[in-house]
């Protein structure tokens, strides 16, 4: 997992260069899709830090995404905040919400943790619906164009939107890489592998898992805020269970516990859903089938399998 530092950083830099350059050869439609994928990948990267590296299988990450989304979009809607402060508010809200949920949910483990996080997310979803006059409820609301600006550029236009999504994605990816290669990253992995073994080496599992969950929440909050600011919409559907399951699917498909896995998973799943929904309204059937095949033949996901068989140095 560690070692080969130059090769690892070079690989990730190369991925960033390719993603950045894609805006010049992709059609506007696909470039916008890529911007969406980058934001979703940030969400998945956060999920990966909790699940892939620390072993926290959460079903409540939609709540963290929605916390960031509304913490950014409500001030933008009501008080005319611009994108910069709104994004910071969104990131902070994701982290705070994760901390609050974690303080209670981390007293459980395994299936109980999944259920408790799911309950928190459902409570958040219902709260958003209940406060519909502020949140827009099921219909959501569109963000005013004036608030969707950063450094004088409108995020409603293609190039600034792509660049903003890329900036967030690149920061998230590099921070994720640095984190998993740090001492704390090793501690997270130790926790995932075996809590009791970690405890007898002097680690406090609760503290480590809470910290990992908060970091995951920062990513989710950032992704939620970015989605609202870049695509101009906030709605209760982002707090629904679908958005708790999606990052899990991205991570499982790309490879849990790999830095690039969430991005790869997000790309493939995004286009798989798009392709399947063109064929049938029951597109989730095709998505489900693809996942069953994946679990049967590559249970560690694409990059997890590649790492296991050919590239053990892959972080």
């Amino acid at each position: 997992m560690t070692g080969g530092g130059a090769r690892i950083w070079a690989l990730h830099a190369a991925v960033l260069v390719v993603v950045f350059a894609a805006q010049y050869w992709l059609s506007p439609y696909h470039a916008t899709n890529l911007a969406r994928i980058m934001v979703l990948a940030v969400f998945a990267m956060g999920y990966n830090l909790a699940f892939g590296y620390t072993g926290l299988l959460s079903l409540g990450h939609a709540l963290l995404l929605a916390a960031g989304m509304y913490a950014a979009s409500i001030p933008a809607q009501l008080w005319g905040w611009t994108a910069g402060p709104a994004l910071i508010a969104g990131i902070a809200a994701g982290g705070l919400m994760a901390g609050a949920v974690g303080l209670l949910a981390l007293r459980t483990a395994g299936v109980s943790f999944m259920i408790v996080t799911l309950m928190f997310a459902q409570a958040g979803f219902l709260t958003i619906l209940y406060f519909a006059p502020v949140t827009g409820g099921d219909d959501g609301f569109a963000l005013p164009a004036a608030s969707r600006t950063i450094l004088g550029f409108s995020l409603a236009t293609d190039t600034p939107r792509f660049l903003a999504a890329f900036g967030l994605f690149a920061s998230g990816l590099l921070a994720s890489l640095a984190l998993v290669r740090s001492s704390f990253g090793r501690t997270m992995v130790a926790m995932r592998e075996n809590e009791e073994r970690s405890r007898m080496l002097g680690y406090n599992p609760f503290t480590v898992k809470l910290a990992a969950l908060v970091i995951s929440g920062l990513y989710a909050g950032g992704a939620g805020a970015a989605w609202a600011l870049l695509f101009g919409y906030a709605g209760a559907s982002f707090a629904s269970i679908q958005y708790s399951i999606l990052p899990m699917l991205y991570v499982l498909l790309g490879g849990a516990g790999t830095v690039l896995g969430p991005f790869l998973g997000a790309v493939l799943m995004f286009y798989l859903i798009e392709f399947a929904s063109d064929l049938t309204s029951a597109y989730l059937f095709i998505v489900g089938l693809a996942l069953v095949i994946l679990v049967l033949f590559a249970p560690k996901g694409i990059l997890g399998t590649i790492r296991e068989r050919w590239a053990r140095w892959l972080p």
Partner: protein
Amino acid sequence: MALEVVSLSSGYGPITVLHGVSFRAEPGRVSCIMGRNGAGKSTLLKCLMGLVPARSGTITLNGVALHGLPAHEVPRRGIAYVPQGRRLFGPLTVAENLAIGGLVTGNRPETLHRVLTLFPRLRERLTQTAATLSGGEQQMLAIARALCLDPRVLLLDEPTEGLQPSMIALIQEAIVVLKARGVAVVLVEQRVDAVLKLADRVAFMVSGRIVEDRDVSGLRADADAFRTYVGV
């Protein structure tokens, strides 16, 4: 830095496993605990580590109370534990296992150097995943990982179990070196030859009680004690 256990009782749920155990481990000495299966030897070590809570009695290290501390605090006070069955982080490399072992003490380079000098074979395997090591190498790594904490007391639960003779010799040599460095070693062991070679004192456990605690010199000519309490 003596580890002192006085009237320790502990168990699981409604079952009491340890009944008023008293025991002492001195720096630079190997204190052995022997007994039949189910006598409570492993539970005693887990209780010393805080992994099984003490119900009554005291555990002190150089006079400082350890009983009642959360399990993750005990290694920070200078006690390291190598459980039965090694319990490594299998998918991680040797280097990563050692790094995780030494994180709470700051991964001091001199500690790592000392550990790798004790087990030079691990130096050759640093990039290999722990799960792919041989049984003996895994045991070396388990001990090495514990030593990365720079402990004053080392608890070893049957460290030579299932190993080939050449590996057993290497592990025993390492224990002798640790003893010479002043580490208090508490060794749970079933092999009489190993006990006679390494131990300074031997405590025999029966049904969660220490029934005899003797200097090893007196045991060399008394095979009856081993036969009575261990069945060998």
